């Protein structure tokens, strides 16, 4: 059963999230659905809220995400990509379940956000999310 988080800030349809995707997940500029599958005990898909860093400038937003993940000791690989998930677009693709996009805000990563509302067995939702992605950015510029 999908988790029902409480006490976090609900993000808006016009907001965007970045999901780090390992080099093994990206083939010919296309992102594998595997990048959006929840695994094991994961209750949500881990992402970063881009508008936390700047309202509109994608370059500043992506630099902020890279710095945040580096601060957390996250191992970002040169061939990796950041997928940008627009919440409105994601909701147009994912229709079988109701997703929630929440700002979780950790002390060492205030932009940390999660996509809730699906489970490890919702393969189709992972596929829908990957199809909704319209932007990929290099993990290391």
């Amino acid at each position: 059963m999908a988790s029902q988080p409480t006490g976090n800030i609900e993000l808006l349809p016009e907001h965007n999230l970045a999901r780090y995707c390992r080099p093994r997940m990206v083939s010919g500029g296309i992102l594998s659905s595997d990048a959006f599958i929840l695994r094991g005990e994961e209750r949500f898909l881990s992402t970063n809220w881009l508008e936390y860093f700047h309202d509109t400038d994608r370059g500043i937003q992506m630099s902020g995400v890279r710095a945040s993940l580096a601060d957390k000791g996250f191992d970002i690989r040169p061939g990796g990509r950041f997928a940008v998930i627009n919440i409105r677009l994601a909701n147009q693709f994912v229709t079988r379940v109701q997703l929630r996009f929440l700002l979780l805000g950790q002390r060492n990563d205030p932009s940390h956000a999660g996509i809730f509302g699906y489970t490890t067995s919702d393969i189709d939702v992972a596929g829908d999310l990957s199809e909704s992605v319209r932007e990929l950015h290099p993990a290391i510029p």
Partner: protein
Amino acid sequence: MALASSTTIAEISARLREMGEGELADRLDYLASDEDLDPGESPATDESARGFFEFFTSVKSDSKVGLACSPEGWVVGEWRWFPDKRSASIWFLDGEQVMFTARKRSGERVAIGERKNFTDRFTLAKVFVQEGLLSWRLSQQGT
């Protein structure tokens, strides 16, 4: 194109190159290597690659194919370059079993039986052909 159960990824890559699929062979070699592996992740397994190869050589498509690899070592085939709403992601769990998500020409998701996203690769190929996602290659037609 039946493979022996001992066929390795290196042998499968060689077969792909013989077929003129050098890009896929290179990608498979990369996925079978330790390059870019995170702790706890597995490189692509031989049995998963066999499943992909058998599926790939049984069907043809107007989409090119991309390859990824799950942390479990499952090869993931991505048919995502269709000119319409069709798409397919297939995880080859071993030589026979697959997990998948796919969209028909109408945009509707494909589901098979009670398990919806899990089946064997021959059933998946048959359903995909029936739904117009892919077509049989060579002598598979009508089987």
